[in-house]
């Protein structure tokens, strides 16, 4: 759906020359700043986002994640590289085509909501349709139905600034959905909210996107959020993508020390699945273990937390099955070992 290849973004007057120097001499970020007075925002990013998936881009502030995502609707022009969304080469769009593309294909949600304070909630939600030139009654009907989806149906006539932060961000989400875009870009949408509201909105968002099935690029600096929301996660550092994978991939096989440090604090209970905890049937039998017929059985993608609950009540090891075959065994000691490994790192 979204194909990003070789995207570079350098800020500064001499960005072309700096990019040439980076490519030919391989100089680093600080040297580029020193020699060309050019800041590297995004460095050689390649990624593919599948249709309907929630793709998290994660990194600390200054890692280039917001910069990267702003290329998808060309709020920023890349210095080099190409971005294709649903077959459209975004970088080649003319100004008019770009406006229509932004309006129809992409909806964006912003960290600080970015609502128009002098307009009512429903007018804010209807804004993309207004820009498209939809007549007033039609766009208000559409906006009202979307507002109902985010459970703000009764608030349409209030001014945006009268709402709480959480509600404002729901308005922001409704506005992004109003034009029924194929792609949602969410730029740290829940970062400005307090933790309780944030959890609530994350859950709501996950439910909502399960039914809407929009391709979503979700930026966050919070790994817990990325794990909770994302199907896949890309971790960025200094403008580069250092690892792409599912939450489990990243937690189990961090690409480098930086990622390892990052994931150290994450709770393994929700992320780890049975196939990562188990020992194979052969290994189990080789070490003299036996299988009882009444042993509990679980599929291979069951999270660790379910296995723990089972292991508390059952003394016998849990048999893990995949495609109807028994593939492995999880004992209490396997579970405990997994947990302690996670704890040691953190």
């Amino acid at each position: 759906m979204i194909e990003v290849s070789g995207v570079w973004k350098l800020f500064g007057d001499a960005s072309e020359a700096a990019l040439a120097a980076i490519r030919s001499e391989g100089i680093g970020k600080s040297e580029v700043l020193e020699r060309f007075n050019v800041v590297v925002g995004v460095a050689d990013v390649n990624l593919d986002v599948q249709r309907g998936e929630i793709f998290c881009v994660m990194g600390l502030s200054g890692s280039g994640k917001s910069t990267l995502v702003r290329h998808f609707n060309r709020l920023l022009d890349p210095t080099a590289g190409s971005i294709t969304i649903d077959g459209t080469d975004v970088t080649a769009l003319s100004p008019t085509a770009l406006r229509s593309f932004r309006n129809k294909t992409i909806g964006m949600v912003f960290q600080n909501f970015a609502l128009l304070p002098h307009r009512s909630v429903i007018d804010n939600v209807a804004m993309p349709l207004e820009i498209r030139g939809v007549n007033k009654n039609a766009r208000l009907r559409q906006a009202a139905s979307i507002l109902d989806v985010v459970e703000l149906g009764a608030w349409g006539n209030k001014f945006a600034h009268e709402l709480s932060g959480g509600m404002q961000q729901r308005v922001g989400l409704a506005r992004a959905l109003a034009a029924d875009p194929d792609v949602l870009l969410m730029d740290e949408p829940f970062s400005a909210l307090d933790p309780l509201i944030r959890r609530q909105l994350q859950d709501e968002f996950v439910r909502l996107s399960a039914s809407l099935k929009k391709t979503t690029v979700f930026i966050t600096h919070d790994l817990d959020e990325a794990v909770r929301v994302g199907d896949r996660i890309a971790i960025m550092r200094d403008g580069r993508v250092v690892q792409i994978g599912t939450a489990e991939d990243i937690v189990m096989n961090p690409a480098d020390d930086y990622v390892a440090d990052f994931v150290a604090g994450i709770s393994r209970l929700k992320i780890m699945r049975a196939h990562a905890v188990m020992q194979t049937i052969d290994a189990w039998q080789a070490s003299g273990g036996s299988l009882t017929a009444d042993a509990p059985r679980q599929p291979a993608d069951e999270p660790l937390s379910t296995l723990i609950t089972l292991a508390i009540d059952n003394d016998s090891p849990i048999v893990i099955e995949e495609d109807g075959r028994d593939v492995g065994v999880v004992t209490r000691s396997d579970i405990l070992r997994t947990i302690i490994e996670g704890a040691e790192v953190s």
Partner: protein
Amino acid sequence: MNRLDEPSVLLGGETAANALAAERRNRVPQFVRTHTDYYTRQFEHIGNRSGFTPTFNMMAGLLGSIWFGARGLWNWAVMFLIIEVVGFVQIARGLFGDLAAGARERVASIENTLELRRQQLASAIESGSDKIAVYERTVKSLEDNIGGIRLEAQAMEEQGVWIALSGLVVLFLVKLVQALVANTALERRFSDWLSDPTVRHGMPTRDSVLAAIFVVVILVTAMLHYSFPGSIALLSEFPTLPSIRLTAISVVEGFFSFAVLHGEVLFDAITRGIRLLLDTLELVFVQTPWIVIASFIILLTWLSAGVSTAIFSGAFLAYMGLLGFWDKAMTTLALLGTAACLSIIIGIPLGMFAARRPRFYSAIQPIMDFMQTMPAFVFMIPVIAFFGTGKPAAVVTTMIFGGTPVVRLTVLGLRGVPEHVREAAVSFGASKWYLLTRVDLPLAAPSIRAGINQTIMLSLAMVVVASLIGAKGLGEDVLEALQYANVGQGILAGFAILFCAMILDRIVQGARK
């Protein structure tokens, strides 16, 4: 040992604390360059005390402002230099100065008169005139007078020692202060330098030489001038070149006469445009029956600012009507309205254009400063040259003075539109026109409205000045009252202007809510 007045260093921070102290110590030599050991010790000492710690820096005391200048502490140097100059001048004046010069001049002039009178007396005695007694009295009183002034001169000459002594005391005290504060000032500069390496440090030759020359030149000229007044003519008067001024005047005049001659078409067009608007507004305000205008104004204030303000504005209008200011007030409003309308029509688009073009804005900013600060009487001269006297010239003068706030506040308002809101609109495919009309202008509206308000108020302030070049209206009454010192009329007309301003302000400002 745990002393109560000292915060105990947190556990584990000990090494970091030591490292910082060492870093500070090690960098002192790099900062001071000379006498490194001395300053390291002094800075350490100052750091160990809270509050001001007097230390004694002999060199700073001896060299004074030169030391401070050479160390780059220029603000201290300049302050000390002023006091030093006072001290030195007093000493020089006391020792070498001719303190009684003034008194002696007076003695000399009286002596001349006395001589004359004596001759007159002598000739009177010779001719046996009856004025002998009169002349004798005059001579006597002049002689007494001279005696008094002589005594005064003598006393003044004796004061010389004391003046010199007071100068010496001042000098001694300032040297003492210099020696005491020098290290503290330098230590503070050192702390600044640690965070900002561009701060002056060491003893740059440039600063040292500059300080020495500066101090010597100032001291020598000041002492020369006060000790031997008039000995060097150059010191007492700024050398002028009358020819430069004459040429400058003729160049400026030449430019304006050229502009008047060749810009006639342009100025005529502007005049005609202003006239058109002005005549229309005058027709509306002056020719319409007063009752229509008054009820319209009251309605307008009621709509925008509420009932109580409407009642007030009704009272204000009654004041103008009953005291016979109605027609004049309407003429003023027409004039003012024309100026304000034109300012707004030009100003808001200009502000919109300038808001996102910083270079253009910084280019027009000095022009706007010029328009606002140049005294009205100065730009009235060329305005009269271009437009002649009369109402169009008054409108132009008013626009020059009052037209800038609307531009400035439009720019301010547009720049204050949050960038993320604009970005959001762009991300949904907004065109430039949509961005301007639906995002920028509504969000900047409060600021723009404040600008319009400011422009109207400033224009009103020009009413009296505008009446100088032939604009009729309330200003004329004030001007007339000024010419004939007619307090009553002046104050009443002044109030009428004030009420106009208040009504306009409420109409514009009320809508801001």
